[in-house]
């Protein structure tokens, strides 16, 4: 875990970010289930107990509301807890703590709650309904929270560090499909990546795909295939769900005049709907086609691979929708 530029996986990058922030700030500590001796269900926190000891890597009973509440209390007293959910699906068990207690705290009585709540999210791993969720839409409308959802190794490293340094409760979602499938180079000398800033992942002129996390790669695959036909797709990686980089969203919408919002979540009530609404409200006169959402089925996440493939967006479905829009 030396602080030098090196090629790592997405998972390693997050671990390195935790490590570096714990080294830099003695008030940062980790709390969650099986994160100490075992190193976490995905081994993301492996080695941290040995380095930082049991007062900074704390195993808890199975009690999501209990340990999120404890993190909130400790954050108010000057610590910077980083909570791990073993699977992000279990964040539902702490909904009251996050939405009602942490999110509203600063507004209600002026007391800040600097904490990060992170965990493995997303599907395409046959995890079925309880181990595949993307809960960003549930939390997006809750005031006072920030929501980060990186899609690259560099962003995972830079954004976990910024999330820990932020003075607000930050939800940090880690798509588990990316954990060991992508690699990148991280450096402790890299400039911090601010929350709330999107990244242009691919420039184009014909249509914009606005996306994040694992769907970034679906977007890039579709863009690559369409490039062979001379269709130039722009891909915007939001990186942060909240605060939302509306400026970047409107800029790409105005540039290409056609927008697909691609997200891995049931379509009804989706976060994609919020992005689409902003484009429709503020860039309507620049559009050449209706704003489209490409999301998941309005079903629980199914288990069997053919069913989950049907549930999830993929390049074929995306390209089909893009062709419809380009024809308009």
């Amino acid at each position, binding site marked *: 875990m030396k602080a030098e530029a090196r090629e790592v996986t997405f998972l390693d990058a997050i671990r390195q970010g935790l490590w570096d922030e714990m080294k830099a700030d003695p008030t940062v500590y980790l709390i969650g289930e099986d994160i100490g001796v075992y190193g976490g269900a995905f081994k993301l926190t492996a080695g941290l107990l040995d380095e930082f000891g049991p007062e900074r890597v704390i195993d808890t009973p199975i009690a999501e509301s209990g340990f999120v509440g404890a993190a909130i209390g400790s954050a108010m007293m000057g610590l910077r807890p980083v909570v791990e959910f073993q699977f992000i699906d279990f964040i539902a068990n702490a909904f009251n703590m996050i939405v009602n207690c942490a999110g509203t705290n600063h507004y*209600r*009585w002026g007391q800040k709650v600097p904490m990060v709540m992170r965990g493995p999210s997303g599907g395409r791993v046959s995890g079925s309904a309880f181990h595949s969720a993307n809960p960003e839409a549930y939390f997006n409308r809750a005031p006072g929270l920030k929501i980060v959802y990186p899609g690259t190794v560099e962003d995972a490293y830079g954004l976990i560090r910024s999330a820990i340094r932020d003075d*607000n409760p930050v939800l940090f979602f880690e798509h588990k499909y990316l954990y060991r499938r992508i690699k990148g180079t991280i450096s402790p000398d890299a400039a911090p990546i601010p929350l709330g800033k999107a990244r242009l992942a691919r420039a184009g002129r014909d249509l914009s795909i606005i996306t994040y996390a694992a769907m970034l790669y679906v977007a890039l695959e579709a863009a690559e295939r369409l490039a062979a036909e001379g269709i130039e797709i722009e891909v915007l990686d939001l990186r942060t769900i909240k605060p939302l980089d509306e400026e970047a969203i409107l800029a790409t919408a105005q540039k290409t005049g056609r927008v697909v919002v691609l997200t891995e979540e049931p379509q009804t009530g989706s976060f994609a709907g919020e992005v689409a609404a902003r484009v429709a409200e503020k860039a309507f006169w620049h559009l050449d086609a209706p704003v489209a959402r490409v999301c998941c089925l309005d079903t629980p996440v199914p288990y069997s691979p053919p069913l989950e493939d049907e549930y999830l967006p993929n390049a074929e479905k995306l390209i089909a929708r893009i062709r419809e829009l380009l024809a308009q």
Partner: protein
Amino acid sequence: MTALGSLYPQPSERTEKLAKTSLSRERQLELYRFLKLNRLVEDRLTNLYRQGKVVGGLYGSRGQEAISIGTAYAMGPDDVVAPLIRNLGAMLVRGVSPREVFTQYMARGGSPTGGKDCNLHFGDLKRGLISPISMLGALVPVMAGVGLAAKLQHKSYVAMTYIGDGGTSTGDFHEGMNVAAVLGVPLVVVAEHNGYAYSTPTANQMKIKDLAQRAAAFGVPARIADGNDVLAVYEAASAMIEAARDGGGPQLLEVKTFRMKGHAEHDDASYVPKELFEQWKAKDPIDRFERHLLGNGFATQEELDAIAAVIHAELDAEVDFALASPMPPPERAHEGVYAEGGMA
């Protein structure tokens, strides 16, 4: 006698023998002043509510004042407490002023939250106060975290919070107590057994007789105290706060009492048998403490009357101040969702 009434100790009338205490006469008179202040502030609030001056609901602690006062009075200067809606007394002991309470209950711009939150929902870490959370049980995990911070920072402060009999039915109470026990944090949870959770009697909340029985599930020490004896509450809370400070982990203090009004001012409590009110009126904690002070020669009636007169004069002025205070500017609604800055 109803089944519910039989859960409680019977009233010991006329002669007032409260718990033994090491508190000096002066400190007992200070306790009396806080008890009286608690009740008189709430009486003023009731009047303001009936005049339509209170914005939203009004929640009182009539009959339960000795619990808030006795427990908060047992805290050390660096200890941290999270009150619930019936713990105005704890806030007063920690230095909250009647002005803060009146302006807050009337949603004024100069109130502690500037109009952002209601009634007793404000806090101030400089005075060791965490703002209440309405979702019952939630403060137990949160205050476990306050205690955890003390432990991780190697500081000696203790966290304390309150819960009602109904609140102990929540998952958060159980998760919070268990997490606190396993992590060994300095936390005192005061469980106020006041007979009713809104309209639901304790018998419809649980099949156990004493809230203290719940402690066995977490492996934490428990005590039961007479919640209408401020000295008993103070002594029990002092012992448990010091036990928590000395590394004893979380402590559960059950205090037996009775809610002498409805859940809130709008609730006439018609579901409570009248004889229960009559029975508990005879055990009013302030009346009992007065009899103790007078009977033991710690104070004369004139001295007690003088304490009340000073409070009345202060409250007259503070109610006037609050009524004359402006409402908040509307644009404030936009401000303060996020804490600015951070370390980045």
